[in-house]
């Protein structure tokens, strides 16, 4: 019996593919944004609001991750230049997008004609935080009915966020969501992410988010 030291990361293969995706995106001067949240927090509405808010100035692509349906992709189809749907059902990973899926999606997109790609991850606050996709920015959405304790339960995803969206602010009068407590909990884990309280229903606050995103695109 003898021992062999290995010390190799089990996610190394995913990280290598993600690095390849990032290089490909950079080569085509395309900014990719990974949008993550729990199911029902409003990712698709947020994508639609973001597309509408950005207007005609930027050429947009969307990658829709979903376990089975194409409902989200259909809604988005009319608004974006290029949409690719990934159904994760039957794939080894159904709880999150992984770098291989993005690699395959990018191959089907006209990257030279795109300035920005929004990636709608599978609704889940745990698994997506483990997989680098090759994106440039990670955006996490928390919605007010979910409660303000999400950062305490799912610290990794909030610690890694480049921006945090507080969606459904129109419901604040009706739910127990303390914005101050939520932002403090995120800030404890993450010194840099800006907060964007907004309502995808009324459109309130969307302009601030879109302006920030436009600046990130301009800085790239």
């Amino acid at each position, binding site marked *: 019996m003898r021992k062999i030291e290995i010390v190799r990361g089990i996610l190394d293969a995913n990280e290598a593919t993600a690095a390849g995706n990032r290089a490909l995106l950079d080569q085509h001067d395309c900014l990719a944004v990974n949008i993550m949240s729990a199911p029902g927090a409003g990712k698709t509405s947020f994508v639609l609001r973001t597309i509408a808010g950005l207007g005609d100035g930027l050429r947009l692509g969307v990658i829709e991750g979903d376990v089975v349906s194409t409902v989200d992709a259909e809604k988005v189809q009319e608004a974006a230049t290029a949409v690719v749907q990934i159904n994760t059902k039957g794939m080894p990973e159904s709880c999150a997008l992984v770098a291989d899926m993005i690699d395959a999606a990018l191959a089907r997109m006209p990257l030279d004609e795109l300035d920005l790609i929004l990636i709608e991850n599978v609704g889940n606050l745990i698994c997506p935080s483990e997989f680098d996709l090759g994106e440039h920015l990670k955006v996490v959405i928390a919605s007010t009915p979910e409660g303000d304790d999400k950062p305490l339960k799912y*610290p990794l995803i909030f610690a890694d966020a480049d921006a945090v969206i507080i969606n459904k602010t129109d419901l604040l009068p009706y739910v127990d969501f303390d914005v101050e407590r939520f932002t403090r909990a995120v800030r404890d*884990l993450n010194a840099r992410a800006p907060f964007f309280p907004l309502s995808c229903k009324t459109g309130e606050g969307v302009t601030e988010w879109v302006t920030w995103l436009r600046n990130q695109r301009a800085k790239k």
Partner: protein
Amino acid sequence: MHEYGITESLLRIVEDSASEAGVTQVSTIRVVVGALTGFVPDSIQFYFETMSKNTVAEGATLEFEELPVKLRCRACAQVFAPETREWTCAGCGSSEVDIEGGRELYIKEMEVS
């Protein structure tokens, strides 16, 4: 549930390492899992038993070692392992921290014959 893909990656690393070392039977695989990851050892074990059939790792024991959460206080730079979900610096009481450890997932070593 993303343990299927994780187990597949794990097995590939084991097979590659075994082949590099010219080994034909792996008896134990030691995996290090950070406390903050969402990986479920039992689930990896479940997939492993099926997926390792007819490989050098068939019948091997998977051993998991959990690494604790490690935080660095942003105020005083002390690194500490929180004992509860209250992530407050034992040195200065600040709750502003950066996550330094707890997200690991790697194969440390294997025993072979």
